[in-house]
């Protein structure tokens, strides 16, 4: 049923997107090392730390209550790991990568995904010079905190009554991806307001670079998340429902 909606919707969106966009060279990724002034770098780090600590506690609680879900936890972490390694070409003539945080946020809750997402960012900052340590706080807020919370909220909102699960998962993952890069744009805009137009003008500029490139990738990420969701539903429904029931109880 759902694919009848997905495919034409995807094609229509793609056509519209290709027709309104003029190619430009832009590279959409995380905020580069050293590219946030010290004050902002510290601000985002301080904001991020409590989420990380709460996330650690949440993981401990989940694995203690349902020890058999550890492998599933590894799977959602690995999903984020793979997706953020895939730099996909996009319609702006540049490449970016998805975030892969939606799946884990829906299954384990946003706090758990905050920890897993920031571990992915740490790996990329240390080994790949992609993102950075000073900007890790800011990047973690966008990818590991805001993204997962958006995913969780969208899923809860759309899946009410247990219907339209696939659509809810798709929207959750796609919007998590997109919101991550909108936050990145906002973070850069706050740190570097334009001389005329201030933060708003600057935000438009960065969003043009970061968020626009991300649109088709967000769609891809939503679709891939539905794929994994279906497989899980086919082979591991018990644990999935166990986790979601535990979440609803809280």
């Amino acid at each position, binding site marked *: *049923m759902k*694919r009848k909606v*997905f495919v034409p919707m*995807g094609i229509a969106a*793609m056509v519209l997107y*290709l027709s309104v966009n003029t*190619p*430009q*060279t*832009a*590279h959409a*990724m995380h905020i*580069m*090392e*050293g*590219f946030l*002034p010290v004050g902002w770098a510290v601000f985002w780090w301080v904001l991020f730390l409590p989420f990380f600590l709460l996330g650690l506690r949440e993981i401990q609680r989940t694995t203690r209550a349902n020890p058999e879900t550890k*492998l599933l936890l*590894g*799977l959602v*972490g*690995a*999903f984020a*790991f*793979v997706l953020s390694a*895939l*730099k*996909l*070409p*996009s*319609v702006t*003539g*540049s*490449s970016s990568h998805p975030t892969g945080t939606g799946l884990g946020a829906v299954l384990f809750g946003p706090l758990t995904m905050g920890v897993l997402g920031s571990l992915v960012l740490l790996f*990329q*900052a240390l*080994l*790949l*010079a992609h993102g*950075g340590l*000073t900007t890790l706080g800011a990047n973690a807020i966008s990818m590991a905190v805001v993204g997962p919370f958006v995913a969780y909220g969208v899923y809860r909102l759309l899946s009410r009554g247990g219907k339209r699960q696939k659509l809810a998962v798709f929207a959750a993952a796609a919007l998590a991806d997109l919101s991550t890069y909108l936050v990145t744009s906002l973070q*850069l805009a706050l740190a*570097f*307001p*334009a001389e005329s137009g201030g933060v708003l003008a600057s935000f438009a*500029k*960065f969003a043009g*670079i*970061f968020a626009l490139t991300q649109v*088709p990738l967000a769609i*891809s990420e939503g*679709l*891939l998340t*539905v794929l*994994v969701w*279906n497989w*899980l539903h*086919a*082979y*591991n429904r018990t644990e999935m429902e166990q986790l979601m029931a535990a979440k609803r109880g809280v």
Partner: protein
Amino acid sequence: MGKSNRYLTIAILLVVILLAVLPLAFIHGSEFGGSDDAAEEAVGQLAPDYEPWFQPIFEPPGAETESLLFALQAAIGAGVIGYAFGFFRGRSTKKGRTNEDSV
């Protein structure tokens, strides 16, 4: 897995591939660069005096090493996903069989 699910899987994979291939087919004269040049450039325009105050501790010496590390990241992740799905699938078929046996 049901038949409609299998079709959905194939449809999803096709759309994802299309989304990646279409830009390559339609946009010419771009290298689809992966460095963060444009954002750096934008910062340069907005704040010409800004100097990055911290450098990456370790930077892959070249494109080859960088792609090695990215491939490694994807491979590790894919390995874990493959292991988990193999485990889940094996367990669910085993469970199905025991249920049949007991009936």
